[in-house]
């Protein structure tokens, strides 16, 4: 016996797989038993097999460091994160509700601004939003969808509550790793898939393709859909190529496209120009179209916005959708859900203090050493203050930043992110913190949520930073159907204790 689960110290946090040392949660029971039966040598062999599979399959991401782009193999832990289907169904409903409200909000903001007139959402927030695009005012995209693809980050606190940490509505990435992680697991632990009902995840590219087809401005059987990438130096390039390949669409760069006098978008082919109907763009708004946004952008293509505004082109996500992807706007999502849908939020937000509010700001400034402070518009974990881990100098620096520009900051309590057992290089297991990023596709007439999502792990002991650009890794995420697998021996009550 290799892994001694009695020695697994997970009491200080909520552990996704274990209720306590030696006590797996029902959904994880079969997995724990299976790992129990493997010898150290077998475990090491599987771990190395996974590393090799990742190298051979070329699953990588690009990091920019020391003036060079380095292609790194995807850091992966072979012990999956397990979620019971019953819990997942509730989460899924919460995500659908959330994205529905966000899309209604964006459409409202660019048209009548009812939510501002009704004083639910402060006008000053809108005025100062860096992601608000005046060019989009008055636009109603096909099917009224702006955020077609959303990646929401979920975290679980010590008491087991699952919170939404943020919604990524611009160009969320990671979905390819979600699917590839599963392929690696199937290569390395095929027998696990025999005795557990693990819901499949590989449907995503087909769902994405159908959604993009639904956006086409021309009623065609086979509209011409392309994926626009900034190119091989982008950290998510692997994913761009992967998605294009999975959907059988062209992977294009800005220089492959042009917008002609008829306001239609074309791509350059060996047969001459060919009309493009829908672009899944993985380029930020500001680089999309040098005609209206940043003039110096070489990544985008002149005229794309014009083509879109004239209804000759579908763009996912819509330009300007990022207005709702702002850590300050985030705090208003529960109110949006109430305002637009008349419902209570199924998934809670992390409690947040907005520095623009005098009372909140005073609280934040008085408790900087206990809080996490985030700027409104950074991603990838940059520009943050983690109070309990910061020195006095950094705390003072943030005090200055907040006072200079309160609108740009919000603060949250430091959550005790949940953990899951992670295999170390010496074949022991230790708890590591993690989060979960599901992806939500909105077509207008229906919404699709990935089964589970991408589980990101902070590979360093005690670390809370899960971003791959900063030393994070990933795990396969299993949504398992315990009912289909027969009743587990242990009582089910303890595992559900944390779910809302």
């Amino acid at each position, binding site marked *: 016996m290799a892994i001694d689960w009695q020695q697994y110290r997970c009491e200080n946090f909520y552990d996704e797989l274990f209720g306590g040392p030696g006590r797996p949660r029902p959904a994880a029971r079969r997995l724990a038993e299976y790992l129990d039966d493997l010898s150290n040598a077998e475990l090491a062999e599987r771990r190395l097999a996974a590393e090799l599979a990742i*190298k*051979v*399959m*070329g699953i990588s991401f690009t990091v920019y460091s020391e003036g060079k782009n380095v292609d790194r193999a995807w850091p992966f832990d072979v012990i999956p994160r397990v979620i019971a289907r019953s819990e997942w169904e509730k989460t899924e409903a919460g995500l659908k509700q959330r994205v529905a409200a966000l899309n209604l909000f964006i459409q409202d903001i660019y048209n009548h601004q009812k939510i501002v007139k009704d004083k639910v959402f402060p006008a000053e927030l809108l005025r100062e939003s860096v992601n608000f695009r005046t060019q989009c005012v008055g636009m109603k995209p096909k099917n009224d969808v702006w955020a077609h693809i959303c990646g929401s980050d979920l975290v679980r606190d010590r008491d087991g509550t699952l919170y939404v940490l943020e919604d990524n509505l611009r160009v969320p990435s990671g979905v390819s790793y979600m699917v590839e992680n599963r392929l690696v697991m199937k290569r390395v632990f095929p027998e696990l898939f025999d005795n557990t009902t693990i819901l499949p995840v590989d449907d995503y590219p087909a769902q994405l393709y159908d959604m993009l087809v639904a956006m086409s401005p021309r009623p065609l059987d086979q509209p011409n859909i392309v994926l626009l990438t900034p*190119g*091989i130096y982008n950290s998510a*390039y*692997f994913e761009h*190529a*992967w998605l*294009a*390949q999975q959907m*059988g*669409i*062209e*992977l*294009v*760069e800005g*220089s*492959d496209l*042009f917008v*002609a006098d008829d306001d239609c978008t*074309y*791509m*350059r*082919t*060996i*047969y*001459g*120009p060919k009309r493009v109907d829908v672009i899944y763009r993985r380029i930020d708004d500001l680089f999309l179209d040098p005609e209206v946004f940043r003039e110096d952008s070489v990544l985008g293509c002149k005229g794309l916005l014009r083509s879109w505004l004239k209804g000759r082109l579908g763009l996912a996500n819509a330009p300007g959708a990022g207005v709702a992807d702002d850590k300050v706007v985030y705090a208003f999502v529960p109110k949006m859900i109430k305002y637009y849908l008349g419902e209570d939020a199924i998934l809670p937000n992390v409690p947040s203090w907005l520095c623009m509010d005098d009372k909140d700001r005073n609280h934040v400034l008085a408790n900087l050493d206990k809080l996490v402070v985030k700027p409104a518009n950074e991603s990838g974990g940059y520009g943050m203050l983690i109070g309990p881990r910061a020195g006095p100098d950094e705390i003072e620096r943030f005090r200055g930043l907040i006072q200079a520009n309160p609108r740009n900051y919000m603060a949250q309590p430091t959550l005790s992110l949940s953990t899951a057992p992670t295999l170390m290089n010496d074949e022991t297991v230790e708890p590591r913190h993690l989060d979960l990023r599901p992806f939500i596709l909105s077509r207008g007439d229906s919404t699709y949520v990935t089964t589970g999502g991408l589980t990101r792990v902070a590979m360093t002991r005690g670390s809370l930073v899960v971003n791959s650009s900063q030393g994070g890794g990933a795990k396969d995420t299993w949504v398992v159907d315990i009912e289909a697998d027969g009743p587990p021996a242990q009582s089910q009550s303890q595992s559900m204790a944390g779910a809302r």
Partner: protein
Amino acid sequence: MLSRVADDLYWFGRYLQRAENTARLINVNANLLLDLPKGMTMGWEPLVQIVGADQAYREHYEDSTEANVLRFLMLDERNGSSILSSLQQAREILRTVRDSIPREVWEKLNDLHYFVQGRGEMVMSRTRRQEFLQRVIDGAVLVYGTLTTNMSRDVGFQFLKVGTNVEQADMTTRILDVRSTSLIDASGRQDLAPFYNIQWMSVLRSLTAYQMYRRHVRARVNRTGVLRFLLQNREFPRSVMFCLGAVGACLPQLPQNRNVERTLWRVRALVQDANIDRLVERGLSELIDEIQIGLGEMHAAFAQAFFRVEPA
């Protein structure tokens, strides 16, 4: 097919072929040096000339020692044509055109790239060098084989094949050019005659042409025979004529373009009509220059016709 992708596939064919050819070239030169008499300094410099990287070499190295030249040709990332650089570029391209090429090809190329990157240092020992180079050659052949057995013969494949053959024709003429001028002049010295011939044999060997030459030519290895075989033979896959024929065979599947056809016919006529028997040393060099220019024009014609599409 996107113009950029066609361009990428073309270059993928070229880089893969380049890595393989460079490995063969080094292997053969190493063997040749072992056979030469003491005091004959053919050395490693001609290899740098063959790949046309003299200037880059001189920027980074002072003298042409074996270790320097080998590092430059195999592993130096500052040499855009080194084996490692070629594989890296082929790999970067494959990443950008992953959707047009079977996944297995990517896995094989990735393997080869990691092998060269990780094990390259062992080439510094002579005993293991041959094994290393052989694995590079085998790896490149495996990538190409995986490609040809798994990829649809679509238009993308044609561009890849054009690139492979343009590169081979280019490399064959380069080898002939450098080898024919740097070969020892054996006319005055009877004792050097045997070495004169082994050099022509090494030319054949660097193109893996020795065995096929013997089957076709059925005469001892000599200058005229080798030149005729490597320039004009229509059956040997590394001869210039064969490569041009292969490019021609791709054209019916590409959008028609008169300029591409014209430049191809011109260089084919040049090779086909050359009277090898009567070429003196200088004439050979001029012929090869003309062929190289012809190949360059052909490359430009392809780029103009397919890789750069202007708005209508």
